[in-house]
């Protein structure tokens, strides 16, 4: 289970985006905030990769880096983001607008603040087509109307000339999706696209993203803190904590065979509709990223912390071809630590399949 792993350079033809050892920091008044501390992951064509973590775990910063929209006080300390033969961390601002929109699209968390309040939504959808792709306005309008229909905005002709404040939250998010799709990108990055929405609206937006992904063969990076959403969307999952990926695997591996204590905690800290037992609370608070802890960043909050956790950063241990976790508990010399009872029970229940809505 802990074999030496080599990077398979040969099998990268279906890999569309490769992130390697990315480190991003922010200059702040208090010091250098180490937001992302060396993450690596691949995005394959046509798959959805979820990045799960709580606020401050560095998930939004990593996708801002991919999009080249970091604020000016950010520093990319090291690493590369390989896309289409180019390293996106080295692409200049002047060239980056060729990639944004046309190749990589982004959907925002808050659809209200993401739309310009005083510009007609039709114009917001078409402006990139007209300005960046030199399409003539009439053609662009036709394409925009098509897109609006595709994302489920009915009565598109009339709504084309309306302003964002005339739409509901769910509709605004649909507009943002239409804008992201306007450039016909091959990668779609979703930054908590449903956090600001109600559950029923969220369900519809997730369905929409899934169906668009299929029909356009998109590769999706999906950022969220909601494991339910992850289960719904993701083929593969990266769990982030304190600026690092601590576990990565397929959706099934993460949900049914989690290996990192933080993943355990995430899975068992929130009740689902059938939970009765006491929740497993993670004590303490996430670390201050100006002074990230030595060793395993999660150790101070981990009931099963080992001595080495406080000294040395754990490497990735391989559990399967697709499943890796960075925790010393997987070291052969480590004591066997059982899954928490709550989690065991829950996984058993999950594997039994939901009797929900049979």
């Amino acid at each position, binding site marked *: 289970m802990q074999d030496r792993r080599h990077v398979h350079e040969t099998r990268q033809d279906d890999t569309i985006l490769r992130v390697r050892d990315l480190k991003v920091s922010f200059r702040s008044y208090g010091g250098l905030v180490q937001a992302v501390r060396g993450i690596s992951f691949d995005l394959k064509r046509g798959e959805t990769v979820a990045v799960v973590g*709580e*606020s401050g775990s560095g998930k939004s910063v990593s996708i801002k880096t991919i999009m080249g929209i970091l604020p000016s006080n950010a520093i990319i300390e090291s690493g590369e983001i390989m896309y289409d033969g180019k390293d996106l961390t080295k692409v200049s601002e002047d060239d980056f607008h060729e990639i944004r929109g046309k190749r990589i699209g982004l959907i925002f968390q808050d659809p209200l603040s993401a739309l310009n309040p005083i510009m007609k939504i039709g114009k917001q959808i078409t402006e990139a087509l007209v300005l960046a792709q030199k399409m003539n306005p009439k053609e662009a309008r036709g394409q925009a109307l098509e897109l609006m229909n595709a994302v489920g905005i009915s009565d598109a002709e009339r709504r084309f000339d309306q302003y964002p404040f005339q739409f509901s939250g769910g509709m605004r998010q649909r507009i943002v999706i239409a804008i992201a799709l306007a450039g016909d990108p091959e990668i779609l990055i979703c930054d908590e696209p449903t956090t600001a929405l*109600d*559950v*029923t*609206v*969220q*369900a*519809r937006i*997730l*369905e929409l993203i899934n169906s668009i992904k299929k029909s356009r063969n998109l590769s999706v990076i999906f950022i969220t*803190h*909601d*494991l*339910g*959403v*992850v*289960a*719904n969307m*993701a083929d593969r999952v990266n769990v982030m904590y304190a600026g690092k990926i601590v576990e990565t695997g397929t*959706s*099934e591996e993460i*949900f049914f065979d989690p290996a990192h204590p933080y993943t355990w*905690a*995430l*899975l068992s*800290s*929130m*009740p*689902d*509709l059938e*939970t*009765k037992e*006491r*929740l*497993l*609370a*993670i*004590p303490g*608070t*996430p670390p201050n990223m100006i002074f990230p802890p030595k060793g395993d960043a999660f150790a101070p909050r981990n009931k099963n912390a080992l001595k080495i956790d406080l000294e040395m950063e754990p490497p990735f241990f391989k559990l399967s071809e697709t499943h890796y976790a960075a925790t010393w508990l997987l070291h052969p010399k480590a004591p066997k630590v059982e899954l928490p009872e709550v989690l065991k029970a829950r996984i058993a229940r*999950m*594997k039994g*399949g*939901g009797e*929900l*809505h049979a």
Partner: protein
Amino acid sequence: MPSSEYLLEVQGLRQYFASGRGKNRLVVKAVDDISFGVKPAETFGLVGESGCGKTTTGRTIIRLCDPTAGRVFFDGREVSGRMTNDLRKYLTDNIAMIFQDPIESLNPRMTIEEIVGEGLKVRGLKDKAEIRRRVVEMLVKVGLNEEHATRYPHEFSGGQRQRIGIARAVIVKPKMIIADEPVSALDVSIQAQVINLLNDLKEELGLTILFIAHDLSVVKYFSNRIGVMYYGRLVEVAKGDDLYKNPLHPYTRALLSAIPQPNPLTERTRQRVDYVPDRDHDYSTEQPTMVEVEPEHFVLCSPSELLEYRRRIAQNV
């Protein structure tokens, strides 16, 4: 008529907000004729989407706003009438509130000791050492320590602030607590801390809780009974398990079907149900009323819908 069964009883509560005048007058029926009761030492969950009036309901009960119509009884005494000093004292002595936003709900200019101790001070406690002692005792109870008493809110993390908010509410020994989305602004890993703390306090102090949230999973985990709200109306009230096994109102069914579960197996096959009021109800001839379909399971429905619901229950059991 207040019955002895309930500690808090809400009857036909309405809360309308009007804006504009003349032709521009716009009335928002934030809460529109809702009735429910909360039994002593139980947790009643109020769930619904943003703008459904659940927060307004909580705020109206504790009289942060005056109700447009309807009556509210607490322990047999009406608390919805004209505000007198006596009534205010009765209300504030018995019901406390926990708020949603851990940043917004603590005064940035006051120390933790002042914030938590304010309720004691208002109740006439003058002895500073005694206030200090009780504040520290309370802080320890919510997992903080004495050193934290002299601190200002901005020095704490979200979860810690929320625990301070709980300490502030509990220190005055209320009989009931209205918890308005106490965990929704917190990070996932912190939510469990707060939920467990609330659970412990509830056991230890025998608190009655009105728990308001939009997350049905959390509400179901935490509450004995649940009320589902939709656009100002209470559409279904039932015990948690009944609601989950036998959702009757189409909105409840839509809500349940929309909740993403952290389980890739079920998620991939999940069938979402939409709720379209105009399609799902025909109220052209019959008006819906709140009816007890089975013991302790109330649904807002018309007589013909009632028949249909009864039939469904019979099949399921």
